[in-house]
């Protein structure tokens, strides 16, 4: 067996526009924050290496466009995600209400095999602001109702809870990625005369015998 390869974990961040998806990613990877708002066009990603349970893994974090008119990478691109991060703004109730549709949208597009147990993480961002409008309790209740999604209250600006949230994301993503049990089912056997080998007849043009 060759040397153990580093696992790549694909993480998708979803949520309404201006909830702080880009800022969270930027704070986590680059430890930087800017107050200026700039819409993400299409998608953007950063990679970061983290250690999870003594394994070095690479997180490929995809920041997506919250504004519908900029969502152009499409569905193909959600496929094969290892974890989905849903972000809302704790000062904007609408962004919280929309979590349902973001989650549904992801499950439809990504169509993971086991949607009930697909790892999501919910982040209530902007807790540094004073005009709080979504209570912790309300957010936790929603998360519990969806199969106990881990919930973190974060501030991308102050860097509150960002590291621990992403550490959880990495851990849950890795657990999902390394779920064993499908590699072994290799049954190579072949039956002659089945329909699939009809193109092996000797008169096919590229035959070299």
């Amino acid at each position: 067996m060759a040397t153990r390869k580093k696992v790549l974990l694909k993480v998708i961040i979803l949520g309404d526009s201006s909830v702080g998806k880009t800022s969270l990613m930027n704070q986590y990877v680059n430890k930087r924050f800017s107050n200026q708002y700039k819409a993400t066009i299409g998608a953007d990603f950063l990679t970061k290496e983290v250690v999870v349970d003594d394994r070095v893994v690479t997180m490929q974090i995809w920041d997506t466009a919250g504004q519908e008119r900029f969502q152009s990478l499409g569905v193909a691109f959600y496929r094969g995600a290892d974890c989905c991060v849903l972000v809302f703004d704790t000062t904007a109730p609408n962004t919280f209400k929309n979590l349902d549709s973001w989650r549904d949208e992801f499950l439809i597009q990504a169509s993971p095999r086991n949607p009930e147990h697909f790892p999501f993480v919910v982040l209530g961002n902007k807790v540094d602001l004073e005009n709080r409008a979504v209570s912790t309790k309300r957010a936790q209740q929603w998360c519990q109702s969806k199969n106990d999604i881990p919930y973190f209250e974060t501030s991308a600006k102050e860097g509150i809870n960002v590291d621990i949230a992403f550490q959880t994301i990495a851990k849950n993503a890795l657990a999902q990625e390394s779920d064993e049990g499908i590699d072994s089912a290799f049954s190579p056997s072949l039956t002659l005369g089945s329909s699939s080998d009809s193109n092996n007849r000797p008169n096919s043009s590229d035959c070299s015998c």
Partner: protein
Amino acid sequence: MSDISNFSDDDDSRQEDCALVDALSELNFEENNIENIRKRKNSDNQEQSETNSDPCSSNSLNFVDEEYDYLHDSEWINQKCQVFILSTAGKPIYTLHGDEDKLNPLFGLLQALVSVVSVSSNGNPDEDDDCIRSITAKNTKFVFLIKNPLILVGVNKSKRSEQQILNQLMDVYNQIIFIVTLKHMKNVYEKRNNYDLRKLVAGSERWIDHLLKDEKQTRISNNSFVSLMHSVRILPMEATTRDNITKTIQTNCSKIKNLVFAVLIANNKLITLVRMKNYCMHTDDLRLIFNVVECSESFKTAENWLPLCLPKFDPNGALYCHISYLSDDCEACLLLMTVDQESFSVLSNAKKNITEKLRRSNYMEAINEGIKDKGINLKTIGVPDIRHFLYKNKKNTQLLCSEITTPYNTLEQFERIEAMYYDLHNRIHRVSRPLKLIYEMHEHEIQLAWVTANYELYATFEPLVEKKSIIIAQVNKLLKYIKKEEDKIFMTGTHIF
């Protein structure tokens, strides 16, 4: 390429950084970047001014993780040929050069390129319409082969055509199927579309490396032309000797049930092939077998029993292959391929008997003679103005080449003439306007390509042959020689158990 991976320190360039889709919609995105990469390479540590026009250049160090930045590795950048394989989810599977772990951002970008184009159709990568096929940026071609659940990308700086690069990617794809089987691969991805296929390919990457002919030591070889010509080469020997070797295999295998193919090869050339009635070995499959045998030293020391999938034969299942060399003093490799998982000992016995019989009849010596052959020697057959040729027998897709001699026996010159053959082949077979004959005088040689119903000839002549009549006379002489020796240099007829 740095555009999307990079987060900018200064917020003013953030807009550009994010503008993946905008940037992708204009092809000069790639072009600019390639320019910039080149510029950066040249101006590294020298002058900032040149790269300042690129809004991301100051941050391009962030492109790859802290460990290593391939985009500043001039050796990596300047590779003539790059091949990347990823899953449609964007998970890295293989890179020809470098370490795919350190190229994660690049794989992300490649997936984004594929996604953004398929979005404009129905977002369904399974559909053939509207998928990215290639990007051309100055002298670099990026060619995409989307074979759900895999994406293969070839990047080539040589003159190869899009179709030729695509053929190379097809070979690589088939090599993966050869290892994993299509059915198993699809099953795995159906169950988990975030699967890391490296778990299944691990240990076999060198088969892909070897297929892409990366090793410089073995680069100067006529073997480079088999994939271009979609053909196999035949070990030269007297027709009666070949017949007798074939008969030896037939007699020892005729009673073995479920044996589909027996293939005897040496030095990347076919000695003989015996098959079950109604089944056929495709040239593409045979080339994969050659590839795997050539780069697996371990086959020389022991009997091997491997399930291998021949993608053209049946991509969904594997044949069990008994693989072993005839003996220490005869480096010919015998492959016995069956559908019966339990027949190792039967095949092992058959192989022993075949070896003994071949030794007693002195056929091993004949094989060893053939192994020494370096290709047709043009001086001895009296065509001194031909420097090198490729002759494809179209009927049985077999390729004949002449020995590689001066001036083409240096790496630089070999790669030059190889590129010329690729170019010639591309132009004569161009779909929009196929040709029958090309005759060209170049600075260093004269080249001729000629396609007929029965064969294709690509020949390289001394540059100073003044009269066309001399060329015509020598070509005719060569063709006459090939006709005369046909039984020896090609394998004719088919053999069944």
